[in-house]
C-alpha cells in the first residue's frame, strides 16, 4: 500500500474538475440523491429526534463496547454461529482464507462490505487462487473495470452508462454500443445468478449486529447479499466492531434513518436478519455462519475523545452526497478506501502522512454534520484534524511560516496598518502580469478585490478617534493597556 504514490487531493481534484461537463454531471447526480433524501426526511416530523436517539445509542454502545462485544459473542455462539476476532486487516484476511480452505471453497460471491475493501480482501484472496465475484451491480461494474468504488453506497456513480455498456460488451457479451440500463441490468442478472448458484461460499458485510440476540442485519436493494448468504453452504460475515447495537428495538431507529439518508428510500428493499446458521424446518443445521469481528484501528479511534464519534458512522454516504467538494472532485480524488467527509476523518487515523491533504479538502461548510443521521460532528472533526496535523508537523513549512508571520503582524496594529496600506498601493500600481502570475492561486480564476483608498481604521482615526484613549494604544505593540472603564 505504501508503494503507491501519494497524490494529494488538490492535484487529483484539479484534474477531475478540469472536465467541467463531467463534473457538472457528477455533481448533479449526487445532488439529486441529496434532494431525494430531503424529500423523505420532510415526511418524518420526528427526524431530529431519530438522529438524537441514534447518536445516544451509539455513544452508549461505543463507551461500553467490550461488554457488548462479549454479549454478542455469547448470543451468537449460542445460536450456532462461529465468532472470530481479528486485530487488523491481515488477521481478517487470514481468517477468511482459512475458513475457505477448510471448506474447500474456491469460488465465492461477495456483497458490499466497506470493511473488506479496507482490508483489501479481494486481491489477497485472488493471490491465493480464490475467485471473488462482487455481486452488488455497482461493485461488479467497478470490479470488471479493475477500478475501485468511488462512493460507499453508489460505487459506480462516476461511470456513464455507455462506459458500462462497453465493459459489459467486453466481459458479458452484451451487444456493442448498448447502454440501456434495463438491458445491461438484465445481462448482469443472468451472469450473477450463475455465480450465486455455483459459489462455494458467500461473503457479506454487516449493517447492524445485535448484542442482546447475537444476530446480524444486512440491508440491500438488490437481494444479492441474501442470495450470497442463502445459497452457498458457507456464509462469512465481516464486521467492524463498531457495528454493534445493544437491543433489537434499536433497529427501529437505524432502519428508519439508513435508507432515507443513503438513497432517499423509506427503507431498503430487503432488511435481512440472521441468527445462527441456516437450518431446515426440523431445526437441523444446513449451512455454516462465520462472523468475523474486526478492530483494524477502531479501538484507537475510540481512544480519542475528539474523534470517537466517527465510530457512529452507519456508512450511509449522505455526507458524500451533500459535500460540495466531493461532488466536484469525485471519490477517487481522496485516494482512500472511504472518501468524502467521513473518509477524511477516518483515513488520517490509518496514515496521517499519506492522507494529510484530506482534512484540508473541505470548505468547513458544515453540511455534512447537519445531514449525518447519527450526528457525527464531521466538520468539527476535520478542523480538529488540521490542528492535529499541525501539531505533528505535517503542515507544509510554507504554511506554518505564513501563519507565524501573519500572527506577528496581527499583534502589532501599527504594522498591520502599514502593511495593509502598502498592499493596497501595490495592488493599485503593480502591472497586471506581476500580480496574476502562476503562483497566485487566488488569481487563477478570480480577480483580487479593488483596493480602496482608505481603510476603515484610517477613516475612524481621522474622523472619530480624536481624544480617545484608543488612538494612543493603536500605536503600541504587543500587550496594550486596557482603556479606562466608563
Amino acid at each position, binding site marked *: 500500500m505504501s508503494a503507491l504514490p501519494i497524490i494529494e487531493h488538490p492535484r487529483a481534484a484539479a484534474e477531475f474538475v478540469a472536465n467541467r461537463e463531467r463534473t457538472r454531471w457528477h455533481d448533479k447526480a449526487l445532488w439529486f440523491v441529496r434532494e431525494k433524501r430531503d424529500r423523505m426526511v420532510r415526511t418524518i*416530523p420526528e427526524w431530529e429526534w431519530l438522529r438524537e436517539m441514534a447518536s445516544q445509542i451509539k455513544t452508549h454502545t461505543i463507551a461500553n463496547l467490550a461488554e457488548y462485544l462479549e454479549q454478542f459473542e455469547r448470543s451468537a455462539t449460542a445460536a450456532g454461529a462461529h465468532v472470530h476476532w481479528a486485530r487488523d486487516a491481515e488477521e481478517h484476511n487470514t481468517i477468511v482464507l482459512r475458513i475457505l480452505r477448510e471448506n474447500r471453497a474456491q469460488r465465492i460471491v461477495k456483497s458490499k462490505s466497506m470493511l473488506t475493501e479496507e482490508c483489501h480482501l479481494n486481491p489477497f484472496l485472488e493471490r491465493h487462487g480464490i475467485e471473488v465475484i462482487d455481486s452488488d451491480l455497482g461493485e461488479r461494474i467497478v470490479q470488471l473495470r479493475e477500478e475501485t468504488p468511488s462512493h460507499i453506497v453508489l460505487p459506480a456513480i462516476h461511470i456513464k452508462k455507455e462506459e458500462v455498456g462497453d465493459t459489459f460488451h467486453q466481459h458479458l457479451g452484451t451487444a456493442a454500443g448498448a447502454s440501456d440500463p434495463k438491458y445491461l441490468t438484465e445481462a448482469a442478472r443472468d451472469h450473477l445468478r450463475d455465480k450465486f448458484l455455483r459459489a462455494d461460499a458467500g461473503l457479506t458485510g454487516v449493517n447492524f449486529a445485535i448484542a442482546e440476540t447475537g444476530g446480524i442485519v444486512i440491508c440491500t436493494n438488490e437481494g444479492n447479499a441474501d442470495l450470497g448468504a442463502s445459497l452457498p453452504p458457507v456464509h462469512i460475515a465481516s464486521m467492524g466492531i463498531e457495528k454493534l447495537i445493544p437491543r433489537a428495538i434499536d433497529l427501529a431507529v437505524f432502519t428508519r434513518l439508513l435508507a432515507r439518508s443513503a438513497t432517499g428510500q423509506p427503507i431498503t428493499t430487503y432488511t435481512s436478519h440472521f441468527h445462527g446458521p441456516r437450518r431446515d424446518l426440523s431445526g437441523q443445521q444446513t449451512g455454516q455462519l462465520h462472523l468475523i469481528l474486526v478492530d483494524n484501528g477502531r479501538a484507537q479511534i475510540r481512544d480519542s475523545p475528539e474523534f470517537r464519534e466517527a465510530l457512529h458512522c452507519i456508512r450511509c454516504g449522505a455526507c458524500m452526497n451533500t459535500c460540495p467538494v466531493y461532488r466536484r472532485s469525485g471519490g477517487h480524488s481522496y485516494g482512500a478506501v472511504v472518501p468524502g467527509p467521513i473518509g477524511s476523518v477516518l483515513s488520517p487515523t490509518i496514515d496521517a502522512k499519506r492522507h494529510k491533504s484530506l482534512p484540508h479538502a473541505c470548505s468547513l461548510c458544515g453540511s455534512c454534520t447537519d445531514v449525518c443521521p447519527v450526528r457525527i460532528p464531521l466538520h468539527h472533526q476535520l478542523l480538529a484534524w488540521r490542528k492535529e496535523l499541525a501539531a505533528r508537523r505535517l503542515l507544509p513549512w510554507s504554511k506554518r511560516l505564513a501563519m507565524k508571520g501573519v500572527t506577528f503582524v496581527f499583534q502589532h496594529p501599527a504594522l498591520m496598518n502599514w502593511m495593509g496600506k502598502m498592499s493596497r498601493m501595490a495592488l493599485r500600481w503593480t502591472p497586471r502580469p506581476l500580480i496574476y502570475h502562476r503562483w497566485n492561486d487566488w488569481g487563477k480564476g478570480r480577480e483580487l478585490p479593488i483596493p480602496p483608498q482608505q481603510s476603515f481604521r484610517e477613516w475612524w482615526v481621522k474622523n472619530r478617534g480624536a481624544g480617545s484613549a484608543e488612538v494612543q494604544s493603536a500605536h503600541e505593540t504587543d500587550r496594550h493597556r486596557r482603556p479606562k472603564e466608563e
Partner: protein
Amino acid sequence: MSSAADAKQIILDRLRSQVVTAPPLPSLQNEDVITFADLQGQFCETSRSVGAACHVVHSPAELTTILNDLEPFRRARRIVSLLPQWVPGNTDLQNFDEPHSLRSLDWMIAPGLFGVAENGAIWIDFSSISHRASLFLTQYLAILVPAKNLVPHMHAAYERVGRAITQPFGLFVSGPSKTADIEQSLVLGAHGCRTLNVFLLANPEAE
C-alpha cells in the same frame, strides 16, 4: 502465530484500557412518532411508491382474477404457493432438496405476517419456509398480508416481531428488488424478484 483467543483478549483489553463514560441507553419512548389516520391507505401508497403493485382483495376469486391478468403469471410454469387456499400452486417447496434447484421457480406466493405503513415493508416469517433462498430466486413474488395487520412505523414493527427475531432468518421486504447503479437509472428486478405484488387480505378469515 497468535490464536483466536489471543486476538479476542487483546481487543477487549485494549477497549477496557480506555474507560469511556456515557449516559445510559435512551428509552425510545416518544409520543410524537408519526401516525397515520388511514393505515391501509398509507401502506398502499408507500408500497406503490417503492415499486410494488398493491391490491386490496376480499376473496380468493378476486385475488386469482388479478393474478391471471398478469402475463408473467399466465405464462408461469412453476408456481409455489404457501397459501394454497388463496392461490393454488403447482409445485411443492418441500420437493426441492436443495435451494439451487429453485433456479427455475417462476412465481412464489408467500404469507406476510404484517405490514409497515411508513415504508411499505412486510415481515416474512420463515419458520415454515423450507428454503429461504426461494424468496430471492423466484422471478416473481406475491405476498399476502392480512389488511388488519398493519402497524404505522418500525418501532411498532420491531415490538411486534419481538422474540421471533431470533429465528435463523427473518425478513422485511419492501418493493421488488431494484438497482440504480447504472447512471442513477432505476431498474426494477435486480437480483431478486422482478416484480412484487402485495395483496392486502380484507377478510376476517384471512390468517
